[in-house]
């Protein structure tokens, strides 16, 4: 039997989602996540470092050559194929959860 993947935390999910749009740097990810979550999810520096490190270890994201010069040459991260798959799995899981909730609470059974 295939092992079921652990659900992602909000921070991990939003970081992957944000990188789905294209490569980004730490500050950009933080701003985009804040925007995507309607101001509900802040990603602190410690969380950002730990999350990007863990996601790189899993092979879901990777560092890529930074664009720009000087201060703009920030570390960029991009989604890998494995990361894309993990994100889609998570989205499917969340859709299933929502559907189940709709079925019970929304009376769509």
């Amino acid at each position, binding site marked *: 039997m295939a092992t079921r993947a652990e659900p992602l935390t909000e*921070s991990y999910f939003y970081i992957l989602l944000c990188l789905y749009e294209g490569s980004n740097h730490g500050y950009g990810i933080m701003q985009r996540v804040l925007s995507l979550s309607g101001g509900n999810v*802040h*990603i*602190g520096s*410690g969380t950002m470092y*730990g999350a990007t490190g863990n996601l790189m270890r899993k092979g879901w994201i990777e560092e890529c050559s930074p664009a720009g010069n000087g201060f703009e040459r*920030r570390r960029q991260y991009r989604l890998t194929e494995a990361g894309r798959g993990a994100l889609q799995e998570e989205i499917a899981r969340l859709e299933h959860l929502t559907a189940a909730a709709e079925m019970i609470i929304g009376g769509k059974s």
Partner: protein
Amino acid sequence: MKQTDTQKILFDRFSPWYYEAEVRQLEELSRQGWQLTARKIWKMEFSRDTGVSYRYAIDFRSGHDEARYLDIFRELGWELVSSIGDAGPVRAAGGYGLFFTPNAHPADGRWYFFRKRYDAALPEEDYLLDTDSVSKSEQKQRLARNYTWGAAVFAALSLLSLFNLLLSVPSANVNLALLRGADIILTLLLCFMTLHRRHIILNTPQKKKRVWDLCVYALLVAVFAGSLIALLAAARMASDGWAIYVCLGIAVLCAIVLLFFLLRGKTSRSRRIAGSLLWVAPIVLFLFGYIFSLGLEYTRDATQSLPPVTAENTPVRLFLQLDENTTIGQIEAQKSSPNWTFTEAFEISNAEIEAESGANLYSYIITPKGEDADGNDVSFSYWMNEGANGVVLDVCFSVWEDGRSQLLYATLTIKTDDGIASCYYYPTAYTQWGGETGFNLELKSAGRLFSHKYLLDTAQEVIDLAYPVVYPNGLE
């Protein structure tokens, strides 16, 4: 504390387990216009600036990619003020700052002090480092790991001391026995304190208790000083003096190498070596002390180190020839002045004697004894020997006073099931046990990890060499 109009230095040792309390302290000082410019192990440095207020964050990392770590913090608006290297489990075990190393390799751990300009318009979350459950949990694990290891190290040391104490000769010098006992208590105490610090660091809110910290310092100094004294004392006694110089030489060499790497080490490799030496050197030295004293036991020249036999230090020896049906019921030892009586009750059957002496080897039994009327320990030993005319029971006893074997005249009576047995009493002429011999050999045993049976085998060899037994007529 030193203070001018523009500068201020607070002498305050960095205590990792109070890191959250320290953040609150720094923020309070910032509101008062004192902005942190440097955090050293023993002090905080501030400059005066009332036009700005900072929020602070203290973070611990080990085995991390420092460049990427600092990049992310900088991108998210944090300014690095200071960092302090951390020697890992050894530091955490003591938790006392002595092993903080300015040049520690990142793999050994490092505390970072960040600040961010305070803006009331920004949400409070902007000043948090860990904002989700995973990173909060990882941070707690990082902080707790070293303390868990530290507690385990102290628990292991405590067990080692206990093991050593149990295997020492029962009549070992009382001061060393106390030292071992103190070792056990102190290491256990340190183990609990390390766990307590683990508890503090994992629970909020933290509250600084400096008096308690100072007590821990004093305790640690006592532990390390005590261990060093015990080691050197054991080395000195085991080797008639010269091993102490070897031990001291190794200690000094380790210290020089350590200092060299700490002060001069610029590469990650040399800093790594220094970090490892911090905890490897004491352990090597500790083990060396044991192993060294073990090997030296056989090399001493007994004929030179044993004292001459005189009437004053001669123990009482009694040779008893047993017939086939004799069973010894009781031995009493009496001394006339000051009066004391010691009675050792035991039984030996003839069958046991045959079994014990079948290989023509003596066997011995040393039993821990009681006290005489003056509170001195009374030591009593006997062993059997197969002589030409049958089995000989060989008895010897001595009184321990002020840590030395004071061998005194006494009257020995052996009661057998046949009544009072005939015995030979030779207080001066047939002595094996010299007072100094017993003293030295038993002290040596206190620093080693093997049983007293082995020790007594060795002791007997030494004594036989120095004082050959001359049996009375008819018993040879």
